[in-house]
């Protein structure tokens, strides 16, 4: 199998789906002539033309809003929101329109739309441009939220998202475009809403996603040298959230640490911990710990920024704590 980057995997998924279905089109800021701020759609404008690769004004509300409307007519728009921080400018359309459209009218309408966006800190972009507010978006029923951690999953999940008849927020991580992984030549889809074991183990369960997965896998590799075998579970989808692999893992390990890049309060870890104690309390031999971002707006200074972001050492410390 070929090893490709996350960027290539996402780009391939878009390309293949656009070749496959002419109702699929891209709209967003700098997706065309520029080739995408993160170079994901490089070459698309020349190949597919301006009808299907549409540069928009800087106007997130109408990017998402128009995508919703177009989707309601049966097109399959992929709205690119340059970074998730700008999705707040489109929040009303994401929350009050996309997520509600079907339920509110008794199932008459469908919104087969993908919003692709980029989350994450660590690039010294300061408080407004470095957020990882993924959990916020996972709060709303009616929206699906996908956040892959490997090129394989990114490609398969994005293709599934584009073919999904429901609105999907597809979250990429700003520092993971160069991450490499094996991706098969032949076509495949990864179903939305399934967590997966990324590394088997028996001593402790690490539940993570996106950048958190990267941290968890690195921590697991280091822990293995000390004889601690962590089982790493990649959530891959935040809504709908698949808890079964976590519970199955807890049957063996009885200990759980959740790793996410976003803020701890009201976050993904909070949700997983709450569900676990509601649904699988008896499997736990220790309190569930969360590794997450410090509760501060991210500063520009790199040392401070890294101090605020969760690190591999924090994951290792949490594992040691739950194993005590």
């Amino acid at each position, binding site marked *: 199998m070929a090893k490709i980057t996350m960027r290539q995997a996402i780009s391939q998924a878009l390309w293949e789906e656009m070749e496959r279905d002419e109702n699929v089109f891209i709209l967003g*800021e700098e997706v065309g002539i*520029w*080739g995408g701020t993160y170079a994901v759609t490089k070459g698309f404008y020349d190949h597919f033309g301006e009808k299907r690769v549409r540069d928009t004004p*800087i*106007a997130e509300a109408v990017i998402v809003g128009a995508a919703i409307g177009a989707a309601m007519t049966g097109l399959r728009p992929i709205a690119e929101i340059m970074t998730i921080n700008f999705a707040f400018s489109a929040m009303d359309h994401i929350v009050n329109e996309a997520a509600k459209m079907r339920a509110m009218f008794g199932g008459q309408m469908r919104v087969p739309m993908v919003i692709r966006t980029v989350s994450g800190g660590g690039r010294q972009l*300061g408080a407004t*441009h470095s957020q990882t507010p993924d959990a916020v978006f996972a709060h709303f029923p009616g929206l699906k939220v996908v956040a892959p951690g490997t090129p394989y999953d990114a490609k398969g999940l994005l293709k599934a998202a584009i073919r999904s008849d429901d609105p999907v927020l597809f979250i990429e991580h700003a520092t993971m475009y160069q991450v490499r992984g094996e991706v098969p030549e032949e076509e495949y889809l990864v179903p939305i809403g399934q967590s997966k074991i990324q590394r088997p183990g028996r001593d402790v369960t690490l539940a993570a996603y996106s950048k958190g997965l990267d941290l968890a896998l690195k921590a697991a590799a280091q822990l293995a040298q000390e004889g601690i075998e962590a089982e790493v579970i990649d959530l891959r989808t935040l809504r709908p959230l698949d808890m079964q692999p976590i519970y199955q893992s807890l049957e063996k390990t009885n200990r759980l640490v959740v790793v996410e890049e976003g803020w701890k309060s009201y976050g993904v870890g909070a949700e997983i911990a709450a569900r676990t104690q509601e649904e699988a309390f008896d499997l736990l031999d220790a309190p569930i710990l969360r590794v997450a971002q410090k509760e501060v707006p991210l500063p520009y*200074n*790199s040392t401070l920024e890294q*101090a605020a972001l969760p690190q591999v050492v924090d994951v290792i410390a949490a594992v040691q704590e739950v194993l005590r």
Partner: protein
Amino acid sequence: MKKEQLLDMYYQMVLIRRVEEAAAELYQQGKIGGFLHLYIGQEAVSTGLVAARQPQDRIITAYRDHGVALNVGISARQVMAELLGKATGISKGKGGSMHMADVEKNFWGGHAIVGAHLPIAAGLALGDQYRGSDGVTICMFGDGATNIGYFHEALNLSKVWKLPVLWVCENNQYGMGTAVERASAVSEIRRKADGYAIPNMAIDGMNVMEVYETAQKALAHVRAAGPFLLEINTYRFRGHSMGDPERYRDKEEVARWQENDPIGIFRRWLLENEKASAETLDAIEARAAADTDDAIRFAETSPEPTLDELFKDIYVEANHG
């Protein structure tokens, strides 16, 4: 205008240029991180505006903010230290290039969400109007920012409430890689103000004297009669931010604009009108270069913020988690 003030404006424009050229190099060396949006080519705009304002006039802008920062009198040292993320920076190293502000100098910040500071500017102006101050808020933003809803909501409210705001669109012809006419229904941006019955005007932003004189009149109008919109045509000589491949414009176009370098235009004007000798202007340029070198030294030898800074300045009141 007094000769000293003219020469000070010249100094400011050259200082912005030198500081930013140095910043570009420091960025290449990895000493500056994040985004760095250079103002090179646009110096006449902020310099003319700031020169025209009264001390009670507030100013607020977007992330391309080094020009305003230096114009309002934040020292080159504090600007450079902020770029390097040092504790001595104007935002204590927490803001970086995009987030400079100095409230004491009535500079209310560089703001990084496109268009988001326009409603804030309306609120700053409301504060002044409410209290009966005759201060005006000068709000600068890019051409690209006029396509987001914030622009329209803010302009509308400013007219309905007669808020003392001078709206200033710096039309540098592109929002990132998108030319104005590809993104805006009207490429003469000032016409958007017509929809809100806000008087407006377009001027040449490469000529600092034109900016200064028009801004004075516009500020007088706002003080007496409510909002006004100035479209100031200009051009950024560098990429949108560092690392812009610039696929969207050709070198000839850039070169054409560079012939109208605002610093060169002002220098010629000062000489032709016998406001200064070539020696005087050369000396000013040398001073700006020396001050830039000093700022780099200061920034490089300044301390990093300490880790306890991470939890400071988040709330006014005690933060109990």
